[in-house]
């Protein structure tokens, strides 16, 4: 269960990247898009993030009964925290700096 907050942080990080890139793109696309087109662009951004991060998020879940599986999940957690620089992200339980 200790890997659960990491899923939230990873989702938060990905969402921040997605929203920033989508904003940038929408600025360049201008107002000429139809609602349907805007939805397609938004779905593009979500689709890429979801497909890329499904594996890493899944790697943070284990049913907690098999000890070796739990160990692997913890290794994955530490690896992902470091790779995605998730430690400094604001999460209530840790009370760290923003």
């Amino acid at each position, binding site marked *: 269960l200790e890997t659960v907050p990491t899923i939230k942080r990873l989702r938060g990080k990905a969402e921040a990247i997605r929203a920033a890139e989508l904003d940038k793109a929408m600025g360049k696309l201008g107002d000429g898009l139809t609602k349907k087109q805007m939805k397609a662009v938004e779905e593009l951004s979500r689709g890429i993030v979801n497909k890329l991060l*499904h594996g890493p998020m899944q790697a943070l*879940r284990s049913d907690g009964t098999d000890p070796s599986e739990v160990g692997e999940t913890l290794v994955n957690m530490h690896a992902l925290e470091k790779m995605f620089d998730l430690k400094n992200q604001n999460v209530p339980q840790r009370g760290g700096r923003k």
Partner: protein
Amino acid sequence: ASLDELKKALREGRALLKVETPAAYAEAEKVFNKALMLSRMQGDQVQIRRATRGLAASKRGLGDTKGSIVFLKEVLDISRQLGDRTGDTDALGNIADLYTEIGDLENAGKYYDEYLDALNDEMST
């Protein structure tokens, strides 16, 4: 006329959410409550779901984590009744995030599992 009013309320509520200030979230909550009432009068489940989603986001913005979870579960219920799971993946992920925020990691894990299953279904279609 009532349908126009409903659509206007939903639009206004979504715009308020983007302001991201406590006052705007409070106003959004009012507007979405009105939208919920109007959509119930219309008996349109899709619009009811939209208003409920708006209320969940308003509650979250206001720091009412548990309130937000209640509305998001309501969203899942409506989807089940409608037989249309659009947006459920997002709702599941958000419920899990909210449970994480209040330190209920047991429920958070349960909802992340449902979220990952839903993502997986989306990916294979």
